C-alpha cells in the first residue's frame, strides 16, 4: 500500500495548477463575476455571449491540456489516465473556481469514445465528439436531482452545445436547443454559474430514439448510475480544491490583518477556526482520493458528504476570519461559498449519500471500512 501521490501524479497536479493560474487568474474570475453587475442575474442568452458564459477559448485550452480526455485511451486521442488523475485535475479546477460544466463535458468525452450505445448520439454526436478537445460544451441534466414539481436546475445551459441527460437507469445526449426550449433562466446565487430551471419529464433520448438503457445487452443499463457516481466524485474533488484554497486564504489573511497590535492569527479563537478548516480539508482529501482509487459507491458517497461539508463550512469560516471584508462582493470568499452551495446540490445530495451509507451498514460483511 502506498496511498501517497506518485511523482507523475504530483507533476500532473502541478501542471494543472500552473495552467489554471495562467489561464484563469483571479483577474479573469473577477471579470466573470463583476461583468455580471454585482447582483446575480439571469444566464446570458444567445450562444453563450452573456454574463457567466463559458469562455470557449479557455475551454479549448483545457481540452488541449487533456482535461476532458484525461481518461480516454491514448488510442482514442486521450491521455490514458484514470480516475485518481482526473480527481487531481478537478481539485485544481475547484481551487481556481473555474466555472463551467466541467464534469459533464469530461463524462461526455468518455461516452463518445467508449463506443457504447448512447442515446441521442446521432443527433448530438458532433457535440459529444468535440467534448474531448474542448470544442464542445456539454452540460448535464440529472433527473434524480428533481426538486419540487419535478423541475431540475441545469448550469450553463445557454453556453452549452449539448446536454447529458441522466435518467433512472439510462443516459443520453440531447441538444442544448431541445432542452433550452422549455427552460427558464434562474437568478443564480453563484454569479459565475448561470442556472436554468428545466421542467420535469425530460427523457434521456428524444422521441423516436432509443436511450442507452433500452439497447439491451447491458451496455447502457447502469450507465446513468456510473456516470452519476463519477460526476459526484469529480464534483467532490472540486469541493476539496475549494476547501483547501479557503484554508490558505483564511490563514494568509489571519497572518496579515493586525488588530489589537498583533496579527489576528495569534488569537486562539482565530487559530482554532483555521485549524478546524484544515482538519475538514485533509479529511475530505483522504476520502476523495480513496474513492478515486476504489470507485466504490460507499466510498464515493462518503467523499461527497465530507467534501461538501469541507467546502461549505470552510468557506463560511474563511468568511468569518475575514470579518467585514468577507461580507463584501469584492472579497472572493463568497464566490467559494456560493459555488460550494451549487456543487453540493449537484449529483448526489447529502440526504441521498447518507441514506446510501446507512443502507450499507445493514449489508453486514459486504464491506469492511
Amino acid at each position: 500500500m502506498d496511498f501517497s501521490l506518485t511523482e507523475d501524479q504530483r507533476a500532473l497536479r502541478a501542471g494543472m495548477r500552473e495552467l489554471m493560474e495562467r489561464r484563469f487568474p483571479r483577474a479573469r474570475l473577477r471579470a466573470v463575476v463583476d461583468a455580471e453587475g454585482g447582483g446575480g442575474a439571469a444566464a446570458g442568452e444567445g450562444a453563450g455571449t452573456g454574463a457567466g458564459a463559458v469562455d470557449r477559448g479557455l475551454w479549448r485550452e483545457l481540452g488541449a491540456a487533456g482535461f476532458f480526455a484525461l481518461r480516454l485511451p491514448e488510442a482514442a486521442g486521450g491521455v490514458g489516465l484514470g480516475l485518481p488523475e482526473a480527481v487531481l485535475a478537478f481539485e485544481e479546477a475547484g481551487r481556481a473556481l473555474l466555472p463551467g460544466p466541467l464534469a459533464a463535458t469530461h463524462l461526455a468525452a468518455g461516452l463518445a469514445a467508449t463506443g457504447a450505445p448512447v442515446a441521442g448520439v446521432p443527433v448530438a454526436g458532433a457535440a459529444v465528439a468535440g467534448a474531448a478537445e474542448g470544442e464542445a460544451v456539454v452540460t448535464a441534466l440529472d433527473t434524480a436531482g428533481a426538486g419540487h414539481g419535478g423541475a431540475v436546475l441545469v448550469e450553463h445551459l445557454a453556453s452549452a452545445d449539448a446536454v447529458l441527460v441522466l435518467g433512472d437507469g439510462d443516459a443520453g445526449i440531447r441538444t442544448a436547443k431541445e432542452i433550452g426550449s422549455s427552460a427558464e433562466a434562474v437568478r443564480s446565487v453563484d454569479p459565475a454559474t448561470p442556472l436554468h430551471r428545466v421542467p420535469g419529464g425530460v427523457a434521456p433520448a428524444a422521441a423516436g430514439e432509443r436511450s442507452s438503457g433500452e439497447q439491451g445487452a447491458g451496455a447502457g443499463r447502469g450507465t446513468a448510475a456510473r456516470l452519476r457516481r463519477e460526476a459526484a466524485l469529480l464534483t467532490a474533488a472540486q469541493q476539496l480544491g475549494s476547501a483547501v484554497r479557503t484554508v490558505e486564504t483564511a490563514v494568509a489573511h489571519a497572518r496579515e490583518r493586525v488588530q489589537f497590535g498583533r496579527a489576528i492569527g495569534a488569537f486562539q479563537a482565530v487559530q482554532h477556526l483555521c485549524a478546524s478548516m484544515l482538519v475538514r480539508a485533509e479529511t475530505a482529501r483522504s476520502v476523495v482520493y480513496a474513492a478515486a482509487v476504489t470507485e466504490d459507491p460507499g466510498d464515493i458517497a462518503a467523499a461527497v458528504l465530507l467534501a461538501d461539508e469541507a467546502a461549505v463550512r470552510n468557506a463560511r469560516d474563511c468568511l468569518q476570519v475575514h470579518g467585514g471584508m468577507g461580507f463584501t462582493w469584492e472579497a472572493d470568499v463568497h464566490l467559494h461559498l456560493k459555488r460550494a452551495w451549487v456543487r453540493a446540490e449537484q449529483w448526489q445530495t447529502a440526504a441521498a449519500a447518507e441514506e446510501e451509507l446507512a443502507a450499507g451498514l445493514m449489508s453486514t460483511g459486504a464491506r469492511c471500512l
Partner: protein
Amino acid sequence: MDLSCTEDEEDFRHRLRAWLRRVLPALPPRPDPADWPARRAYDCGWQRMLHDAGYAGLHWPREAGGKGATPTQHLIFLEETERAGAPYVGANFVGLLHAGPTIAAEGTAGQRARWLPPILRGDEVWCQGFSEPEAGSDLAALRTRAVRDGDDYVVSGSKIWTSHAEVADWCELLVRTAPVTPDTPRHRGISWLALPMDAPGVTVRPLRTLAGTAEFAEVFLDEVRVPVANRVGAENDGWRVTMVTLSFERGTAFVGEVVACRRVLESLARTARANGRWDDPVLRRRLGRLAADCTALWRLTQWNVSEAQRTGGVPGVGGSVFKLRFSQVRQELYDAAAEVLGADALDAGREWVVDRLSSLSYTIAAGTSQIQRNIVAERILGLPKGR
C-alpha cells in the same frame, strides 16, 4: 495512490490471520476490568504469545529486538488483530509504544539489553509518569524534582493520569534536574528516568474516572532513590529524549479503535432495525454520516501511514489532524448509540453506555483538542504563536 497490498503484505496478512484463527479460541476468558493483577496477567500472556510467534515489537527497529516492519505491515497487524477480536495491547501500551521506543532510540547498549527484551516478552510492564497536577497540557511546567546524591537521584513530587500504575514494574519518569531560571527555557532541565515502581517512597493511589472505574492513578514520590544509571539520555535533555519517540508514532496509534468504530456502527444499525428506530430517517441519516466519518478515519490512517513511509517516519500534518477528527467522531458515535438506545442509554448495564462515558476522555487525553488545534495552527499552518 495505491491502496492495494503488495504480495509480501498479503502474505503477511494471511499468515497472521491463520495464526489468529489458531490461537484465539484457546485464550482464557477476559478478566474482570476491576481486577488489575488479572488484567496484567492476561495482557502479558497475550504479549508472550505474540513474542513466541514472532509478532512482538513489529514496528520496533531490528537493533532493538524488533522486526523492523514497515508502517503498512504494522497497520495490517493492528487491523487484523482488531478484526479478529484479539486482545488489545492493554498493560503493555507504554512499554511497547513509548518507553521501549525511547530506550531503543536513546538508551545505551546496556540499557537496551536490560529493559527491551522483557517488554517484548511481556515480562515487565511500564507506566508513564509525565503529567502532574500542575502540569497537564503545559507539560514543561512539571515540578517533580530529582536531586543528585552520589550515584542516585533523590526524587520527590507527584504524577497523575498514570495508567496501569498499580501493576507496573517500571515508570518512564520526567523529572526536573535543573531549576527554571530566567535564562534557561523550561524545556531544558528535564531528565528521563526509569523508576522501579517497587522503590521505597513510591505510593500509588487509584483515581476513579467518571465511568466509575479506576483506569489510572496518582503516583506520589517521596525521596525515592533512582540510580543515575537509570537515566536515559543526557541530564537535562529529557524533553528532547521524550519527543524523539513521538517519531515512532507513524499514524497507527488508533488503528484498532478505528476498526472498532465501524463494528460498533454496524451493530448500532442492527439494534436500531430491531427496536424500530431505524424507521426514523433522521437517525438513519445520522448513522449514514457516521459511516462516512468512520471511512474517513480509516482513509486518513492509510494516508498518514503512507506519508510516514514516504518521509521516513517523521510525523507530518497527519497526527494532530487525525486526533482531532477521531476524538470528535468517537464521541458522536456514542451519542448516536444513546439515540438508538433511547431511555435504555441510562442503563449502565447496556452495551455502549459505559463506552459513551469513556469516550468523553478522547478530546482530553494525549493532548486536548484545544492543544491539538494550537499545534495545527502554529506548526502546520504557520500562524503566529498564540495567546
